[in-house]
């Protein structure tokens, strides 16, 4: 085996993505270092790593955001690179810079690129400048009245967004002038709360928009390729729950056009490493640049499944200065992949997060299925971290097969002890509109009435009650603890 590209990589993350990254590290012969807060000392990513370092923090999340401690941990363990995963510090330019300053390799883009793309407004301007379509919008001025006046100018509906934000925080749709002021104020205060930056901007809101994103790889020297697009239109609370690649019913010409624009943007930015360019696509075929995520996406496995590539390996190779691992012409897509995000939440109660304990985890095993997770039986599910527990990723020869397989896999998946959206995901996949590929980001709301829990029929109720009754020890004793011949004689009376 050739010399590894790095000796040791610290994974500045936790949960499934940390485990995912470590899996590739192990395959590449690279040692891994995990970081963890006190409360997750026995977590799977810690056990999976070759080494682990505890990071102090008032909260577990605070620990994972502590740049100084993380870099110190990397130094202390002799790591020569840091993989940030997604979330936490993955899009923090300061972190990327600090890593570089410490003489370590950041497996991701440069701090400058992160800064550029991290600010919605600068990213948008950059995109516009390089011929990527952007939605008509009003930039923040700091003067709310002026902002409102201009916003009214581009017409309704409008989308109000946090300048510094992402993930739907500080986002709202405004359909009339009368709602605008209050919406702007609320968005601003939410943005302030989440991002420490109250600036908001407004842009044309596309009705029934689809969320299309393009996976790109750049070598940092102006060369970039795309690994096709993904569709992430099915969302709740502005968060994706089902992603697929390729997109449903997207004309090949349009798909190619979108992918090319993404490559153009990445190349123009001298983008290094893996990134994702997100778009909204209207029913009329118009698409607008939304933002660029300068990291590995949660939903990257669907791209891996159709291309057969290991994106983490690509990231490591690029970070190690090996350049792009393949040419655009070498990128081939095969079949269809769907990812379902399994979350600890109650879909029947507005997707409110749930807590509990993983009492039992049963995962179907199929060659066409990946279950990305860091779950342990007995593990507590707390509100400390994101409610996403795992990702179920399924490949099929075509979309219909991928949908059927996903439903089968979800039905066969058991994660008991905390309420999850597993049942709900299967209901979404099985919905006629989903099967038809009639997707948009309002899918969940539009079909809400069809997506409620399916009532049990009589047979199912009986099966359930029988199965449950025999789970209670006392009842099982009662059912099975009768000595012979009494058991055989039954309820006889003389």
């Amino acid at each position: 085996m050739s010399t590894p590209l790095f000796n040791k990589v610290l994974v500045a993350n936790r949960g499934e993505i940390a485990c995912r990254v470590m899996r590739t590290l192990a395959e590449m012969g690279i040692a891994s270092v995990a970081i963890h807060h006190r409360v997750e000392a026995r977590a799977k990513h810690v056990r999976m790593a070759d080494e682990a370092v505890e990071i102090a923090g008032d909260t577990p999340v605070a620990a994972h955001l502590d740049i100084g401690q993380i870099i110190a941990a990397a130094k202390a363990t002799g790591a020569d690179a840091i993989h940030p995963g997604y979330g936490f510090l993955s899009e923090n330019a300061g972190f990327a810079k600090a890593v570089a300053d410490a003489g370590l390799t950041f497996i991701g883009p440069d701090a400058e690129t992160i800064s550029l793309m991290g600010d919605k407004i600068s990213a948008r301007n950059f995109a516009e400048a390089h011929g990527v379509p952007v939605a008509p919008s009003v930039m923040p001025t700091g003067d709310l009245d002026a902002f409102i006046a201009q916003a009214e100018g581009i017409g309704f509906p409008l989308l109000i967004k946090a300048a510094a934000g992402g993930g739907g925080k500080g986002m709202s749709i405004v359909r009339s002038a009368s709602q605008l002021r209050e919406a702007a104020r609320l968005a601003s205060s939410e943005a302030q709360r989440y991002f420490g930056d109250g600036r908001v901007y407004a842009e044309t809101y596309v009705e029934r928009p689809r969320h299309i994103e393009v996976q790109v790889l750049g070598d940092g020297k102006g060369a970039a390729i795309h690994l096709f697009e993904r569709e992430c239109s099915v969302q709740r609370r502005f968060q994706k729950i089902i992603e697929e690649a390729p997109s449903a019913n997207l004309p090949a010409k349009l798909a190619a056009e979108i992918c090319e624009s993404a490559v153009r943007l990445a190349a123009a930015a001298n983008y290094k490493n893996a990134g994702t360019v997100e778009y909204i696509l209207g029913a009329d075929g118009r698409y607008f640049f939304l933002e660029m995520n300068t990291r590995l996406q949660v939903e990257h496995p669907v791209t891996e499944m159709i291309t057969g590539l290991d994106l983490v390996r690509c990231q490591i190779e690029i970070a190690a200065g090996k350049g792009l691992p393949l040419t655009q012409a070498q990128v081939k897509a095969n079949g269809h992949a769907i990812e379902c995000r399994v979350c600890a939440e109650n879909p029947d109660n507005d997707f409110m997060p749930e807590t509990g304990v993983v009492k039992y985890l049963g995962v179907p095993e199929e060659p066409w299925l990946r279950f990305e997770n860091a779950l342990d039986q007995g593990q507590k599910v707390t509100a400390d971290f994101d409610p996403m527990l795992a990702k179920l990723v399924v490949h099929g020869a075509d979309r219909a097969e991928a949908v059927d397989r996903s439903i089968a896999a979800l039905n066969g998946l058991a994660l008991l002890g905390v309420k999850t959206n597993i049942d709900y995901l299967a209901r979404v996949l099985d919905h006629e509109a989903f099967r038809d590929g009639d997707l948009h980001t309002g899918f969940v709301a539009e079909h809400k009435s069809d997506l409620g829990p399916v009532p049990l029929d009589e047979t199912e109720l009986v099966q359930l009650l029988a199965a449950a009754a025999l789970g209670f020890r006392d009842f099982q004793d009662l059912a099975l603890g009768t000595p012979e011949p009494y058991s055989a004689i039954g309820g006889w009376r003389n």
Partner: protein
Amino acid sequence: MRKIQSMISTSSADFRRYDVHNRRVVSEFRAKQEAARHQRPARDLDRLAKQGKMRPRERIEKLLDPGTPFLELSSLAGNMAYDGDSPSASSIVGIGIVSGREVVIRADDPTVKGGAWYPLTAKKIVRALDIAMENRLPVIHLCDSAGGFLQLQSEVFPDKYMAGRIFRNQSILSKMGVKQLSLVFGHCTAGGAYIPGLSDYSVIVRGTGAVFLGGPPLVKAATGEEVSVEELGGADMHTSVSGTADYPAASEDEAIHIGREIVAQWDRPKKWDCQQETPEDPAYDPEEIYGIVPDDIKKSFDMREIIARMVDGSRFHEYQPNYGTTLICGYANIWGYKVGILANNGVLFNDSSLKGGHFIELCNQNNTPLVFLQNITGYMIGREYERRGITKDGAKMIMAQSCSRVPKFTVMCNGSFGAGNYGMCGRAFDGRFLFTWPNHQIGVMGGDQAANTLAEVKLNQMKRAGLVDQSEVDRVWEDTRKAYQEQLSAYYSTSELWDDGIIDPVDTRNALGIAISASLNAPLGDPGYGVFRF
């Protein structure tokens, strides 16, 4: 083991006639049983309902594990006594499953004279506790009794086998390590107070349950003290102050739940290792018994046909099939348990007695429980048989049977007369259980012979007094026969607790299955016999 080849034709005229007859006999039995169980004055039921109490059978049903059997014993005890004022002798006794454990349940019946104990009640309770001792079965008492029936106190109170024996048996049971639980639903007054008092565990229902040696009126009369039931012997007083009872319960339902929970703590006793097979239904329909047993006690029938409708797969290994043929002996399985069966197929001769005695010895050697199916007019009499030693041969059989170490079970199938009753393990011979079919008759001799004998004595007296009118002679004969016949009946015998209850013939298999299962809790007795007269 070979299947018995039935010779019965279910389409024969006899079969159909007997079937009609026996079904009528059984439905009469069922009607009497139904009345004894459920027919009560509305006043008594209203009073019970007002107190928020369940009827005793409801309590039992709730106590038992669902879907398990309950073998009720002596359901018609007392049916011919006290003008019918004490149905089931005011007490319910049976064997069933509570929290997976085989137990004796014994319940007072507050729907009859406040649950007061009649003489036969005491006899029935003593017998229930004897069963518990003989078979090492835990006992659950469902207490709700006003105490001894005062009008008949002389027959309830003083003698060896009267009420005191209950408490003596309770103590001995405890000494033997056999557990007892009392659920106190109503009052336990005077002697009755000792039932929970002598139980290992007791639960008492708040508000309705009470335990005291003397109730408030008696206390007032004796000492002038005025005290409420609750204060004197209520649930909270006994469970928090006196320690007489262990668990207070807020309701009867809760008392039953607590009771079930207590039983669930008990160890499951090891039974002795009787040979066992997987149970099989009889190959012949047990209901065909109705068409086999004739409509007249004087008509004979082949007891093999009964065995064929009682044992697993109708299979029977007959011992000495050609010797002593009036006594059928052989091995079979009942609900899987290997048993040795002795069944009468006519009067007992010398050879049948010897065969019976020998077979009993074989079963004792082989640890095989014995089942006696009685239909016996007695041992053969006459010069020839006495010369052949019928008495000493009968005595051998009685000796072997009496001294058996294996458990014995007797079913009175049709008739039990004279010394045959003894040889075939009659009530006096400590069989673990004895059941009677409703058609059965029992007596020292048959109805007509006895009537003739008795009438002759009377008529001789009349003759001496100069009365010789033929119609008067007929009347005397008929009255005598009638009175005697009544005492011969299964109802009389079960009323007096000479058995453990009348059972429907088709229930025999289940009753024996439970009886055998219960018997295995007690270790086998010591082997050995007395002196056989050879």
